């Protein structure tokens, strides 16, 4: 298959999937739409995290920090200061982006790499969680709640509504994040990122400004994650430090892109479609049977099976079978 033909097949497949997702609310129930919304939310953060880890090779285990900050920003601007969430999404992108740059600059400058950088990101996220849990202004562990929606609520103004509204809102955000990541990955910057991922010292020797490129990827990744956090606040209507800043949040975000296929553009979306229903299902089984912890056991076993038998993630294999990736080498990065 020639490159052009492959590209055409990929575009047609993406278009078909988009059409199906656009039409789905015609047949799906509100419950299914809210689960799908959750899937899109995880896919958005997965896309963001994948830019950093999958393409630039920088392992972050603390993306909950950016998610939580974005969530609290949107919540506070709209509820305390009456600023429209439309505007609130802007600082929800910029502030986490800047925090990401600050952490990156501190870490990268002192050449904190690899596992040390990953632990640095955990440290900042946990530090923020503990801080928020003891900070009166954000409601401590008791959490922060939005005012209840009134019948006069107009979703396109308040950005809050029913399952169907959030379904479309998150779908659009996901497609935007996906397009942004595709543009970046296929640009000059994307090639620099991959060069850094493969061998940072060699990339520097060839004139890639590694520090600047790494800060850029952290900024974009953190910014997208912050916007996802903003949406989470609007969807949920309540925020607790542990539910947006906790370690478990970071873990959940990371698992989806790994399961889907790291360093592929579609992997994070597929991963979210696998992981989120799995999580919901195991929680339902645990609740229905009344056995505490059964959800963790099921989820853990399934994750273990995936990690042991498909460590490259699910998408590369599926893409090849569908004829959406080259069958030879170098199928990573393309689809």
């Amino acid at each position, binding site marked *: 298959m020639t490159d052009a033909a492959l590209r055409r097949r990929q575009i047609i497949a993406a278009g078909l999937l988009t059409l199906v997702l656009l039409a789905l609310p015609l047949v799906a129930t509100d419950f299914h739409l809210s689960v799908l919304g959750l899937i899109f939310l995880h896919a958005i953060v997965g896309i963001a995290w994948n830019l950093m880890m999958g393409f630039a090779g920088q392992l972050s285990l603390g993306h909950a920090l950016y998610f939580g900050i974005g969530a609290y920003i949107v919540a506070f601007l709209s509820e305390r200061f009456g600023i429209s969430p439309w505007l609130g999404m802007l600082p929800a992108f910029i502030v986490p982006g800047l925090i990401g740059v600050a952490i990156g600059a501190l870490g990268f400058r002192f050449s904190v790499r690899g596992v040390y950088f990953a632990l640095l990101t955990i440290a900042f996220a946990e*530090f923020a969680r503990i801080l928020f849990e003891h900070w009166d202004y954000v409601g401590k562990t008791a959490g922060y709640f939005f005012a209840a929606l009134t019948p006069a609520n107009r979703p396109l103004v308040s950005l809050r509504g029913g399952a169907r509204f959030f379904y479309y809102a998150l779908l659009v955000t996901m497609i935007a994040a996906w397009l942004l990541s595709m543009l970046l990955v296929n640009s000059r910057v994307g090639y620099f990122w991959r060069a850094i991922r493969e061998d940072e010292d060699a990339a520097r020797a060839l004139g890639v400004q590694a520090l600047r490129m790494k800060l850029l990827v952290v900024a974009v990744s953190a910014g997208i994650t912050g916007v996802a956090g903003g949406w989470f606040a609007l969807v949920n209507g309540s925020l607790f430090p542990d539910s947006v800043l906790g370690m478990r949040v970071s873990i959940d975000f990371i698992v989806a892109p790994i399961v889907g296929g790291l360093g592929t553009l579609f992997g994070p979306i597929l991963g979210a479609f696998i992981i989120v229903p799995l999580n919901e299902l195991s929680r339902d089984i645990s609740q229905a049977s009344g056995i505490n912890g059964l959800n963790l056991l099921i989820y853990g076993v399934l994750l273990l099976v995936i990690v042991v038998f498909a460590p490259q993630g699910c998408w590369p294999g599926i893409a090849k079978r569908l004829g959406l990736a080259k069958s030879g080498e170098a199928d990573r990065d393309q689809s």
Partner: protein
Amino acid sequence: MLPAMAPQQHSSFMFDLYANVIINGLMIGAIYALIATGLNVVFGVMKVVNFAHGELVVIGMYTGYVLWKFLGLSPIATLPIAMLGMFALGYGFQRVIGNAFVDRPQHIQFALYISVAMIITGLHAVTFGPDPRGIQSAASFAVYRVGPLRLDAVRLHAALTSLAVVAALWAWLRYSIMGKSLHAAADNLVGGRAIGIRIDHVFAVTAGLGAACAGAAGAMIAPLYDTNPYLAGEFTLTAFIIVIVGGLASLPGALLGGLVIGMSEAVAALLITPSAKSLFSYGLLILVLLLRPEGLLGRREGRA
């Protein structure tokens, strides 16, 4: 007279308070040091970060609880059983699954250990339920008095035992043939293979030692904290803080880091509030990562 006396009394009271808080922190810190030593041995030899280490500590705690509940064994008596059992568990896991992941990228290792962590926590919750399980005995309330210091007996025994286990492990790593093989594998994997070290076996022994340290620490902690399945995450994170502050792969670093973090938690709990006890630790961790990423006693490596 009175106004002049008051501040002095106050300051001596404060001194006693802080002295007690710090000595308590140091005793917990000694147990932390044992947990961190297990994590560090594994990282030092295999360059693998075990994100399920805290879960192993909780296995040790439940082992201590079950042996006390059904056989009436004291914490000291449960120690060798917990260590042997956990060594076997760690060895078996490494042989069956772990060894295949030693050369894999970090994020895959992370996913592996996270799944193991979830399975262990899930098994604990399914078996024991979410309710806390505590060990009580006559010794629970015994106290040693040294000048103004009041040392809780159970805590002191646990701290001293932890230090003894750490010391024994150091000696074994330094003087035994197997310990030397571990060092060789850590320094130069290919060279180790070339001179006939069975790397699969060495890695499995390493994982077994890491698990045994965690299990021993768990058995020591069981009488101090009520056990529940969800303690694990905090132990894992505390162990990370300690090894980074002390120095990844440095055994003296794990000891120093354990004592420092134990103390900082105790002081933070007093100055702020107990639920914010790890705030200082994270602050310290961030400072160390930025100013001295190799840790207080770590060696600077080319690759990091």
